[in-house]
């Protein structure tokens, strides 16, 4: 399992090399991996279909109790199959779509890494690894959206997507950690069974809000929907993969995943239901208002994400089953439609539906599968999309609360969806031939047709033979989301009931809108003015604000004067320490000068005097000499107080320091009186304040001991188990040898640094 997930990353590392070797067939070659993964995941189907869930775990950071554990149940298997299955067609398709692109190798690296991250996300059982994969999908999709990095729009869109999703990711992390604290486990498989503990906990509302913030941003729910259509700046295969089938479904996945432990409350229902329904309607409304090929599809994805969110919020077994069916249907037709959008662009150069028309003769196969996929999108019998839509109507009509509002929005959306489907499936291929930027000479190559053909056909196949996916995959997935096995099963024909009537109604009204598409768009033109108040505007404003805050704080804090940095640090330290001392009600200090011997007093006096001289002297020689005096006095203190080794070291280092200073310091200019008197007094006051603080803290620390020193152990064990009688040395080379190793490495680095700085300059001079 670990290998299955990491294989994407591994292949990504060699993908450019493979691409160079295999040339124009690289897409097919690299697509072998997703295909193999698809088959691998398919092998889980019998077990998972019968209701099992499989947990596989590997230790990762045992010290923090973080395992790399994976959970395979209906939900994760459904997603894993979609990711690897659609991934296969995307990789193969991209090989031809981007053929000859200079960065195709890089594209493979990114798309394979993205696929691996996505698989990791849906299969993770551990919250931390789930989060890591979650962020990895954000980062890889950022790179993919910005793939055409020379284009400013692409860069801006990529950054926007990144900020929105990663910002939500931060909220999500907080929510996940809080959830783990409440349930006492980071394992999803355990959290899922402690739903009651979570729902009754005081943090429940906060957890739900934080987790949903993460999911809503990722899955482009209102008001964070604006980044998704922007993300269409990516190459079309990326749009097809990330923004229809996978990445944006991550939020939906997580909501579905956590439904058993966080769901079934009014808060959950209202938040998901209302935001989902609003997103659904906004998405489809924006979709029909757009004319750009990818824009239409992108907004209809927003619609689908809203629908899924709403269904998870409704939370009845019918609703959950509907969500899973809708998820599958949407992935199939949207994947196909996006790939077809790529074909339109590739063969005919069309990026806007208004530029298209009558292409059915030039692109007959494309037109056929576009029609099939569009029928599924529109929810026309006998497509799988129809099955899903019937169940969707049924679920909202039976919703435990808010049924009226949700039904109204759902029907309104369904009408517009039919219109969108007509735009997508009819407009480019039928009617009079419209002059396209490029005249298509031939049908798209097989690598590009394979995806749309298979995905669209599956939409038809699953509709006619609904039992193929119903019992097994979808019921297991729905069971995992619902928390217990579901009793609802799918069927193509429900009889003449209310959902069917609504379907027929939406079909008629939808087609009416399609035939009056131009008038509809003009009539709703006033909506464009509302953009000024939209969330995207808020995003822009907040980005501007962030930039000006950074500028301000750089100007104020990063002013380039070392002493102001120091002053800031010192004064805040003094202030904070004073504050905490005051809060603790003063320090407990015991002062005693008893037992101080006269020679010790003399040494201390010399030390302080020498320090004072080194500060006040105006000659460098005087300063070096007095520093020597300070150092040797310190050495004497070590020796007098039982630290012979330290004393010897101090003496030797002091000698070497003087040698070094002699070698360097005198090549620097003499002291300058640069600072006016007033500033010197200010600095002296700060320095004294800090000195007094250190002295007081030292006093306070000397009179308090919180724990026994571990030195007792070293003293006791030095001879018996370290075979050495010099305890200090035994500590250095035996008990704490690893620390010492680190320290000699630092010393070595400092020496190499000195060498490099001087020798490199010599090189410069020679040039």
């Amino acid at each position, binding site marked *: 399992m670990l290998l299955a997930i990491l294989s994407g990353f591994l292949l990504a590392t060699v993908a450019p090399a493979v691409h160079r070797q295999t040339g124009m067939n690289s897409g097919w070659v690299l697509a072998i991996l997703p295909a193999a993964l698809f088959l691998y995941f398919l092998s889980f189907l019998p077990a998972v279909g019968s209701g099992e869930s499989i947990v596989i775990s590997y230790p990762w950071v045992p010290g923090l109790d973080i395992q790399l554990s994976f959970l395979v149940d209906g939900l994760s298997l459904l997603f894993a199959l979609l990711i690897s299955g659609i991934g296969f067609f995307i990789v193969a398709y991209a090989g031809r779509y981007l053929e000859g692109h200079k960065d195709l190798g890089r594209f493979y690296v990114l798309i394979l890494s993205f696929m691996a991250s996505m698989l990791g996300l849906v299969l993770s059982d551990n919250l931390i690894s789930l989060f890591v994969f979650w962020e990895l999908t954000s980062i890889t999709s950022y790179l993919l959206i910005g793939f055409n990095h020379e284009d400013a729009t692409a860069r801006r869109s990529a950054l926007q997507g990144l900020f929105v999703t990663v910002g939500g990711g931060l909220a999500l992390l907080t929510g996940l950690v809080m959830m783990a604290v409440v349930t006492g486990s980071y394992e999803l498989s355990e959290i899922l069974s402690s739903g009651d503990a979570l729902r009754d906990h005081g943090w429940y509302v906060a957890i739900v809000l934080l987790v949903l913030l993460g999911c809503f941003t990722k899955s482009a729910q209102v008001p964070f929907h604006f980044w998704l259509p922007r993300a269409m700046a990516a190459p079309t295969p990326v749009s097809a993969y990330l923004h229809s089938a996978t990445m944006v479904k991550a939020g939906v996945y997580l909501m579905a995943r956590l439904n058993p432990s966080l769901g079934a409350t009014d808060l959950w229902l209202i938040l998901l239901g209302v935001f989902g329904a609003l997103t659904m309607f906004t998405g489809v409304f924006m979709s029909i208002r757009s004319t750009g090929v990818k824009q239409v599809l992108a907004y209809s994805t927003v619609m689908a994400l809203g629908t899924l969110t709403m269904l998870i919020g409704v939370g009845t077994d019918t609703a959950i089953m509907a969500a899973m069916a809708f998820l599958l249907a949407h992935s199939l037709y949207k994947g196909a439609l996006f790939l077809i959008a790529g074909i339109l662009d590739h063969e005919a150069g069309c990026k806007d539906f208004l530029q298209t028309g009558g292409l059915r003769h030039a692109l007959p196969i494309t037109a056929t599968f576009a029609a099939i996929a569009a029928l599924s999108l529109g929810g026309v019998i006998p497509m799988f999309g129809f099955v899903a839509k019937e169940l969707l109507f049924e679920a909202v009509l039976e919703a435990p609360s808010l049924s009226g509002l949700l039904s109204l929005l759902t029907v309104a959306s369904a009408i517009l969806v039919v219109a969108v489907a007509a735009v997508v499936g009819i407009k480019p291929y039928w009617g009079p031939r419209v002059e396209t930027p490029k005249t298509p000479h031939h049908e798209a190559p097989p690598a590009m047709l394979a995806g749309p053909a298979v995905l669209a056909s599956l939409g038809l196949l699953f509709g006619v033979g609904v039992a193929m996916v119903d019992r097994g995959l979808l019921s297991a997935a729905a069971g995992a989301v619902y928390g217990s096995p579901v009793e609802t099963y799918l069927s193509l024909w429900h009889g003449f009931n209310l959902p069917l009537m609504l379907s027929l109604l939406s079909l008629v009204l939808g087609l009416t809108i399609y035939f009056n598409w131009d008038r509809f768009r003009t009539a709703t033109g006033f909506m464009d003015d509302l953009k000024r108040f939209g969330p995207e505007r808020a995003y822009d404003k907040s980005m501007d604000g962030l930039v000006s805050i950074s500028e301000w704080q750089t100007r104020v804090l990063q002013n380039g004067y070392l002493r102001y940095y120091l002053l800031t640090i010192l004064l805040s330290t003094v202030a904070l320490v004073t504050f905490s001392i005051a809060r603790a009600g003063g320090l407990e200090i015991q002062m005693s000068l008893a037992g101080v011997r006269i020679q010790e007093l003399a040494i201390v006096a010399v030390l302080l005097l020498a320090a004072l001289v080194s500060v006040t002297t105006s000659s460098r020689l005087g300063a070096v000499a007095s520093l020597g005096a300070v150092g040797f006095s310190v050495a004497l203190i070590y020796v007098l107080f039982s630290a012979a080794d330290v004393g010897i*070291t101090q003496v030797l280092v002091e*000698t*070497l320091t003087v040698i070094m200073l002699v*070698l360097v310091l005198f090549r620097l200019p003499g002291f300058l009186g640069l600072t006016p008197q007033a500033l010197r007094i200010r600095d002296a006051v700060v320095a004294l304040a800090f000195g007094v603080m250190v002295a007081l803290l030292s006093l306070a620390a000397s009179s308090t001991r919180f724990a026994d020193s571990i030195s007792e152990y070293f003293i006791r064990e030095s001879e018996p188990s370290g075979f050495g009688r*010099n305890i200090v*040395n035994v500590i250095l*080379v035996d008990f704490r040898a690893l620390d010492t190793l680190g320290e000699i*490495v630092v010393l070595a680095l400092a*020496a190499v640094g000195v060498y490099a700085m*001087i020798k490199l300059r010599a090189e410069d001079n020679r040039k």
Partner: protein
Amino acid sequence: MTRELNIQSLILRSASQLLLPLLLMFSIFLLLRGHDEPGGGFIAGLVAASAIALHMFAQDIHQAKRVLYADPRDLVGWGLVFGVISGVPAIFKGQAFFTSQWLEFTMPILGKIKVGTPLIFDIGVYLVVVGSVLLILLTLAEAED
């Protein structure tokens, strides 16, 4: 900047000829006894480095480099290698890295002698300290010329 680095003093020159071998032997002595009495790799390394630094002042840089035989950069490298190697045997015994391992010998005159990985580690420390300090001082002194 063409100040003469070496100090023109006959006494110092002659003394350093005598002192150098003594100090180097003393540093080895400090290194070996360090486990039981004050001394050890750090101190011994500093003594050796000071001895050679003194030699550098009394004679000249080339003399000092000749005494050292090896390039100080190599000493640093070897020291780190010794340091790391001394931790390895423990792994083969299934213990944590750097768990000390001891071998006991009985020698004809010296009696029982214990040799362990901490001694190898201490030699590593010694080499790194000698190497680093001299690398710093010799580079600085060379820059002076």
